[in-house]
């Protein structure tokens, strides 16, 4: 067996390079932090932010209609188009409305479900339910969206189930989009809310009860204020993920379009990347605005 351990410093007449570096890192915590953080930060900046900026910068360019090439002369033309053409306002309002609706529905479902999961069921059942809740997150997004397509289609599962009641499947359209978005992002909301309930000590519920509060009173005055930041944290996911989705919309939306579909068409389809880039500023701005609005609720520390 050979030994790879370096000889003691004294034997070499002074500390080696490795020792000197590690020594100086030990003495300088900031340097240590710098070395540790540089690679991931570089990756983030170069691979992610730079690519994003490269895309967004084109928002200030235009496309030559004849050659399809990007004309690199800064102009605000695209933003002017977005503001003056009513269609983009319609799309934005529609997309945001659905994102809000999906968030509200998911929250309304997650609040009682989370309470049940955290405070009512036994530990064993809880573990099982938490896994059941998370499993869909590990399935491919596309598979789930396609599965819903077969549910909603003409003569599909939903049609078959509702027929005895004399109801037809709503088919592809806005209703289907709302249902599928709610389904897709529900786990994010419920995980956040569940975590919120877990942080709520049972002793508080007992104290409330000791003071004479009934179930509803306790829920409104004790539980809700405590889990509200968690709901808001979950809403960041449901809101922003719905806002940016276009694949599920194109699969089950019938002729319905979201902002994301139009951006996709411009960037990947119609070869008008500049206009698409300008349009993509809308959801980015909306999400930033949303984060700004909720930062005071304390929800961001829940994320």
């Amino acid at each position, binding site marked *: 067996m050979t030994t790879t351990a370096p000889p003691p410093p004294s034997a070499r007449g002074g500390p080696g390079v490795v020792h000197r570096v590690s020594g100086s890192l030990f003495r300088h915590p900031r340097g240590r932090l710098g070395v540790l953080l540089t690679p991931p930060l570089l990756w983030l900046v170069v691979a992610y932010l730079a690519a994003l900026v490269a895309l967004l910068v084109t928002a200030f360019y235009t*496309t*030559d*209609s*004849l*050659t*399809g*090439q990007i004309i690199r002369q800064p102009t605000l033309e695209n933003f002017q*188009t977005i503001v003056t*053409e009513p*269609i*983009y306002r*319609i*799309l934005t309002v529609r997309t945001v409305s659905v994102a809000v609706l999906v968030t509200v529905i998911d929250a309304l479902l997650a609040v009682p479900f989370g309470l049940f999961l955290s405070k009512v069921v036994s530990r064993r059942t809880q573990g099982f339910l938490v896994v059941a809740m998370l499993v869909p997150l590990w399935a491919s997004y596309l598979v789930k969206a396609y599965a819903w397509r077969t549910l909603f*289609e*003409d*003569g*599909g599962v939903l049609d078959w189930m509702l027929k005895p009641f004399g109801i037809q499947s709503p*088919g*592809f359209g806005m209703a289907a989009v709302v249902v599928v978005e709610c389904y897709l992002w529900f786990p994010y909301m419920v995980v956040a809310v569940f975590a919120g309930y877990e942080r709520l000590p049972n002793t508080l519920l007992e104290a409330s009860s000791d003071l004479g509060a009934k179930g509803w009173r306790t829920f409104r005055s004790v539980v809700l204020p405590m889990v509200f930041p968690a709901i808001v944290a979950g809403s960041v996911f449901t809101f922003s993920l719905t806002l940016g989705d276009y694949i599920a919309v194109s699969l089950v939306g*019938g*002729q319905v*379009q979201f902002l994301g*579909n*139009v951006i996709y*068409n*411009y960037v*990947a*389809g*119609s*070869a*008008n990347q500049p206009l698409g880039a300008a349009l993509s500023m809308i959801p980015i701005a909306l999400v930033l605005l949303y984060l700004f609005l909720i930062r005071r609720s304390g929800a961001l520390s829940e994320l």
Partner: protein
Amino acid sequence: MTAYAGPVGAGEGQLNVLAWPGYAENGSNYKQYDWVTPFETKTGCQVNVKTFGTSDESFKLMQTGQYDVVSASGDASRRLIYGGYVQPVNTSLVTTYPDIFPDLKMQTYNSVDGVAYGIPHGRGANLLAYNPKVVSPAPDTANWGAVFDANSPYKGKVTAYDNPIYIADAALYLMNTQPDLGIQNPYALTSDQLAKAVDVLKTQKSIIGEYWSDATKQIQSFQSGNTVMGTTWEYQVGALAGTKNPVKAFVPTGGSTGWSDTWMVASDTPNINCSYLWLNWITSPSVQAQVAQYFGEAPANRKACALTAKGFCTEYHAADVPYWKDIYFWNTPTKDCINGTGSDCTDYNDWVQAWAEVRGS
């Protein structure tokens, strides 16, 4: 940029093909439809095929510079030429060129100033398809009115092609039914005429269930009964034959939009020999006969007609020059009206914007 001087030597060993679905089959869809593998065996050029659903997609993909040859329709080819993404083609290096139907050569969509930019592949019309089990009586064959009728009994089950170029279908319908609008060519529209076409499409939207741009998805939609009527290609009609919902399809007597495709060579291809070997292969009579019958289109090589099933070329009007006069092949709208009537036409960016308005509203 000048065309390849030749001579066409040994292949470079690789060829990246960008094609409409059904144009470059390698046996992976159906074992018996395979004209890519024999090409690989013969030339040693390994072929990677990438398919696309719309001309815009093909244009976008060609911009990446990752493909050597592309089957471009007229609404992409002009942009490809003017954008410098494809190179002139030396037709003397393509032995099949003399056999190509003359009315396909040197058209506005495949040549500039008398310089050829590709070899014609084949042509066809966009068809009005309907499911005869549901749509009865059969739609009026005079024009495309059946798919633009706001009071259609098939509301929610009509489909349309999801691309700005579909505006031309509405323009053609207006050309047939409202001659006083003065539309002479569905790809040369003034802004007023474009606005009228957009109105037609917005009305149509109330009866559309789904728009389609992916042939496979449209087949599925017809098959499941979600769609019962709308514009399609022979390819889908063929694929639906023998399923539980086969469709009937026709070209209205008032004409139709259509496509005339051209094989083009990327300007910076490192596989120039393989590219020319491919041009020769894909336009050779036997391959043309296979592609035309598989996809359902009129072959560009007249010698292919001897190798197709009896009556095929008559059915598809391969040599029927007057027939094609009523088929308006996809073209790229430009400020200078493509029928030479002036320079106050709407360009493709206007069409893209107009289409966004139709789809998003």
